[in-house]
């Protein structure tokens, strides 16, 4: 029997009251792969990540981590099982210092491993090291994204969910972050689920892309195929 995918979602359906935001979405995410999830505003990308991460209740369908059903597991427990979520806007705690935010991400790990996790985040993002004692509220947009990613990585996740890490960043910084994600995915052997508006940038570093429209998967293919399909590009990816 083949090994089950690290993370698999089956028929995931989620609502906001009477509004259906996701209907019957199925996807599989593998270790060492970056999986781009694309789509227009309101397509359901954020809802998808929130449902996987446990922040949004699932109306139907399942979330399977290494074959185990985690659909009803609370958020904080999923984190302990290896799912890290960088929510839309980063989800950092601006009242805490930079170092405290990262330490928070590493807290549930063994006491002896925590200092190394902090040092690793500062190695990865030197600007954060310089600002370690400052409140996170004083960071720039790009620095906040770094902190959000650093905090998520401090938990040593197996699955990294990222909701528009390029939001509001300069193209050059966006490109750096995309390349960084690629590198992290390869070196830390994670599955990265990358939600992006910036389809071209995301596909450039992805192994696979899925396109959502009105809560449904309308395409799932290798990046090259998606980029080659003019109709798809015009209709859903906006370039």
């Amino acid at each position: 029997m083949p090994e089950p995918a690290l993370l698999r979602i089956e028929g995931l359906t989620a609502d906001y009251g009477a509004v259906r935001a996701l209907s019957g979405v199925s996807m599989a995410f593998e270790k060492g792969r970056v999986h781009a999830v694309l789509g227009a505003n309101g397509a359901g990308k954020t809802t998808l990540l929130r449902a996987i991460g446990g922040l949004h209740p699932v109306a139907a369908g399942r979330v399977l981590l290494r074959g185990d059903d985690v659909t009803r597991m609370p958020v904080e427990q999923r984190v302990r099982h290896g799912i890290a979520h960088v929510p839309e806007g980063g989800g950092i705690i601006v009242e805490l210092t930079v170092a405290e935010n990262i330490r928070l991400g590493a807290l549930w790990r063994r006491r002896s491993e925590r200092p190394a996790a902090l040092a690793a985040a500062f190695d990865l993002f030197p600007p954060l090291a310089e600002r370690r004692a400052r409140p996170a509220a004083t960071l720039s947009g790009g620095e906040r994204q770094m902190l959000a990613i650093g905090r998520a990585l401090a938990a040593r996740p197996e699955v990294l969910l990222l909701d528009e890490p390029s939001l509001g960043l300069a193209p050059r910084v966006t490109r750096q972050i995309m390349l960084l994600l690629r590198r992290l995915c390869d070196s830390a052997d994670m599955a990265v689920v990358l939600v992006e508006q910036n389809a071209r940038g995301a596909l450039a570093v992805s192994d696979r892309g899925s396109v959502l429209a009105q809560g449904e998967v309308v395409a799932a293919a290798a990046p090259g195929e998606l980029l080659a399909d003019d109709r798809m590009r015009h209709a859903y990816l906006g370039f």
Partner: protein
Amino acid sequence: MDRFVDLTLNGAANGAVYAALALSLVIIYQATRVVNFAQPALALIAVYIAYSVSGLTGRYWLGFAAALLAGLLMGALTERLLIRSVHDRSPLSAVIVTLGLLLVLQGAAGMIWTNEPHSFPYPMDFRGRFSASDAFALVSVGTAAALVFALYRFTPLGLRMRAAAHRPEAARVAGVRVGLMLTTGWALASAIGALAAMLAVPPFVSPNVLDAVFVYGITAAVVGGLDNPFGALAGGVLVGLGLSYVSGYAGPELAPLACLAILVAVLSARPAGLFAAPSARKV
């Protein structure tokens, strides 16, 4: 001059009690936006338990420890059983629930221990200027405040509690069990409330003995800024001193009026309290 020193020392000791009560309110308010009006009743039950334990064992300090422990447990239970389910819908309903709990617990105290005042003296001397009991009030509240500060500032538990208080969702995403942190906060706050009550109650305990003290405590919290633990402590000392001077120089019957005057004066100048953080809780 001598009289001024007396009034200052006395006011500081009373202020320590108000500060502790204010701190217990602020810890909960910061995390949940709920003003816990049940605090005096929780503290009252804790004192009655201390009274019973001390009476049965003949050991005051055993009762004292029992009061703190009872405070801890009752705070945790209140959050788990009463507050959590309603708070998710609105903090205001949670405030109403604390008001209901206040009445129920005060009534229950009267039923269990009767409405008659029972003698429950300090174990140490409480006469004269700056008595041993005054010193004990200042030292114990100071120690409690320092411990709370150290807990929040320097321990992983404190970091989790701050994260949960500031941004519950972001804290959950970072792996913090937010519900457990709220329970812990209520337990801690309620234990501090029990400490305040143990200092405030003697020499007689009765169901309404904490009413005035609670009014002064909540004044201290509001004056200091409901969002700021240091403000609560400073507010407590301020109210303690203010009331002591007014009672001493103008007559004790004017103390409640002075309390109201302090409240109005501070709030009209600084609506969020004297020590409110400049950037309280952005979205």
